[in-house]
């Protein structure tokens, strides 16, 4: 069943695009399609390698903060994890088991994972969930740094991240519900 149709937009280097729309409007579906996790029913996604951060952070509670980041850095063929830990204020927690972190700290670790992938395009699905105001500001700084370095980001969020970003409203691409209702009648 199509969720969205006629979606067309582009994200260029150094640019952040914010996806808006009410709950259930297809933001996550769109992000997962762009990430290549599910195929589009029609059309195509053209572009660079992406790093995806969904609702789940992919963190192993039995491993320490440093080991979690180390693993993802190795998977993506990168070396350096210390900078990401410092940028997300995780340095003091580096040897703590990730299972003992608070929800906000886990989220910061999940976002720090993006920084160690070395991928240019970040796909962020509600990145600020369970972050406090200071952490949101911290994340905004890291994101600005990423954009300034030629990166790009596609963000589904309801929160102001504190910088200029083009907004794409997903609701305008909703597949026509009336036509489907007719099909089932």
């Amino acid at each position, binding site marked *: 069943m199509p969720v969205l149709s006629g979606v067309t937009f582009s994200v260029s280097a150094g640019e952040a695009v914010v996806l808006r729309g009410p709950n259930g409007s297809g933001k996550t579906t769109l992000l997962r399609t762009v990430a*290549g996790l599910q195929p589009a029913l029609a059309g195509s996604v053209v572009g660079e390698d992406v790093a995806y951060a*969904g609702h*789940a952070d*992919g963190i*192993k509670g*039995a*491993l320490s903060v440093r080991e979690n980041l180390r693993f*993802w850095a190795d998977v*993506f063929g990168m070396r350096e994890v210390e900078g990401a830990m410092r940028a997300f204020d995780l340095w003091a927690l580096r040897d703590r088991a990730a299972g003992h972190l608070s929800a906000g700290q886990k989220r910061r670790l999940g976002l720090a*994972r993006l920084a160690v992938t070395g991928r240019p395009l970040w796909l962020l699905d509600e990145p600020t969930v369970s972050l406090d105001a200071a952490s949101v500001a911290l994340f905004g700084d890291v994101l600005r740094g990423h954009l300034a370095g030629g990166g790009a980001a596609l963000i589904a969020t309801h929160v102001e991240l504190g910088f200029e970003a083009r907004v794409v409203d997903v609701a305008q691409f909703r597949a026509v519900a009336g036509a489907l209702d007719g099909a089932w009648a």
Partner: protein
Amino acid sequence: MIRLVLRDLSLAVRAGGGFGLGLAFFLIVVVLVPFAIGPEAALLGAVAPGVLWLGALLACLLSLDRMFALDFEDGTLDLLACAPVPLEGVVAAKAFAHWITTGLPLVAAAPVLGVLLNLPVAGYGWVVVSLALGTPALSMIGAFGAALTVGLRRGGLLLSLLVLPLYVPTLIFGAEVARRGATGQGGEAPLLLLAGISLGAMALLPFAAAAALRINLR
């Protein structure tokens, strides 16, 4: 990929990782069999190869549903699917890690437990060789079953039903190698077939399992 194997191994040996679960189950089954069958040495010796193989197979089955389910629940599988490693390689790495944590301890424990079952002296080498060649097939076939059922809540029952029929050829030839070895006949012919099953599973099933994972991630 090596990194993935190492991570799975370190997760397995830490608290709550499930390392030793299969081994403990194997131990319990084999220790209880003499109580159930009775102390008649000749009878025990005759069933020993089959009991060792059946115990190893069920012990392998026990830990299968954790193979992908944990990574699926915490989102790791989504992230690995976006990572620059082929999903086929992820499957192979996870099956290999499962074999090291489950299959290899069973291979090592089998000769010790053979003593409890009065396994004939000639059979020890054959039991170890047959388990060493057969358990990789159990892990790989199990990985395929786990990939098929990864998105399901309480998928363990379905997983067992799917995987057990696929385990039958491995069990037949594996137990046959051990039985022939223990009775002094050469076990080479079934051993070759067992090795063939293992190699076939390792060559083909990573692709099937990766395709199943892609569908389940949608």
